[in-house]
């Protein structure tokens, strides 16, 4: 279970977040610059709150008066906006980047089949489309078998057909993996289709919470 209860001063407002998330899918909606990505960054350890706590399955990621846990130790899968694939590595090298030799990759082989990227493995990021990049990046985020998955605007660069397909794949993955997933989106329709819970964030405050 993910517990979030923190505040962080941003340029124009104070970001205040408080929620608990079990093995559910949660959507964060709200206008640009409202603090959604900062929340993901705080959970991942890329940014740190000013005060409060973040824990996952009883492990403190951040707690007042304690040194924040290193990013590397948090076991977070993070799909960045625009995917941030390593441009000098092909899709397969991107996906297997963090794995040491001899690691069991059967779950990755299965993922590449589910997400339909088996044919893309030898291609470089600049050789594949937005939807394909999204699927490669999602496979990469899941490759190290994370305890939580963070997705920042995962569907923003996709056309309607690809969006639908990727969303169905995400639901399928969640059903299999049973880990908490937080995704940021601008589109309420995405949130309604995928999420068990939706939090609307406006100027750093949780304005509304919907549970489906």
């Amino acid at each position, binding site marked *: 279970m993910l517990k979030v209860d923190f505040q962080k001063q941003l340029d124009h407002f104070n970001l205040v977040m408080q929620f608990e998330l079990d093995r559910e899918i949660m959507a964060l909606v709200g206008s640009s610059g409202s603090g959604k990505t900062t929340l993901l960054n705080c959970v991942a350890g*890329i940014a740190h709150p000013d005060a409060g706590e973040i824990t996952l399955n009883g492990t403190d990621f951040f707690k007042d008066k304690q040194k924040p846990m290193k990013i590397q130790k948090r076991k977070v899968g993070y799909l960045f906006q*625009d995917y941030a694939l390593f*441009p000098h590595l092909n899709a397969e090298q991107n996906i297997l980047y963090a794995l040491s030799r001899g690691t069991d990759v059967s779950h990755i082989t299965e993922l590449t089949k589910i997400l339909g990227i088996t044919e893309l493995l030898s291609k470089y990021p600049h050789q594949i489309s937005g939807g394909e990049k999204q699927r490669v990046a999602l496979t990469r985020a899941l490759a*190290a078998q994370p305890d939580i998955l963070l997705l920042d605007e995962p569907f923003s660069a996709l056309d309607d057909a690809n969006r639908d397909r990727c969303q169905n794949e995400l639901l399928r993955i969640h059903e299999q993996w049973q880990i908490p997933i937080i995704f940021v989106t601008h589109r309420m329709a995405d949130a309604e289709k995928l999420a068990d819970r939706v939090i609307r964030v406006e100027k750093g405050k949780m304005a509304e919470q919907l549970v489906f």
Partner: protein
Amino acid sequence: MMAYDLSPLWLSLRVAVISTFFVFVVSLALARLMNRREFFGKSFVEALILLPLVLPPTVIGFGLIVLFGVNGPLGILLEQWFGFRVVFTWIGAAIASFVVSLPLMYQSVLAAYEKVDPRWENVARTMGVSEWRIFRTITLPLAWSGILAGLILAFARGIGEFGATLMIAGYIPGVTETVPLAIYFAYEAGDMEKAMFWVLIISSLGVAAITWVNYWRKKNAIRIGRE
């Protein structure tokens, strides 16, 4: 054209290769530190690194003599610990090359690091990868074309160093006679043919280096592509 003793060329290459090696290692670490850390006096430290770019070579040479001279603090230390002198040796020429080419390499490496999107390093961190491995496998390969351009510039600057070299290493034919010194003293002696010979050699090296950097940049851009 008569045959000339090629020892200035070999000495220049030796001086430039050795100074460029140290410039490479120091710049990589220094630029990384300046790119990643904020600390009190950072601007001052950066100004010190870049200072040789704006100082006359005579000032650099003078500074090196004060530091590495027979009575200079570092000169005494090196002689006591390692038993060698810097003044009037090719090592002095290498140190002069190091000092003048370090800021060029530092600037290139810093710019190259800054071009590496921090998201790539953050993605790797979330995947549990160590900082050292991220540096080796993400930062360095993606910054490499800028680093290589800096390396060639540093090498070219090192091989062409004249003023500070003359002050600390002096002109001793066969011992500290680098190509730029050979050109100057051939000209002084009225041997225009010899001066022209060395001018052509060093100019050819410069053209070859710049051509290769441009070729490498284009090739690298195609290899890496754009995301």
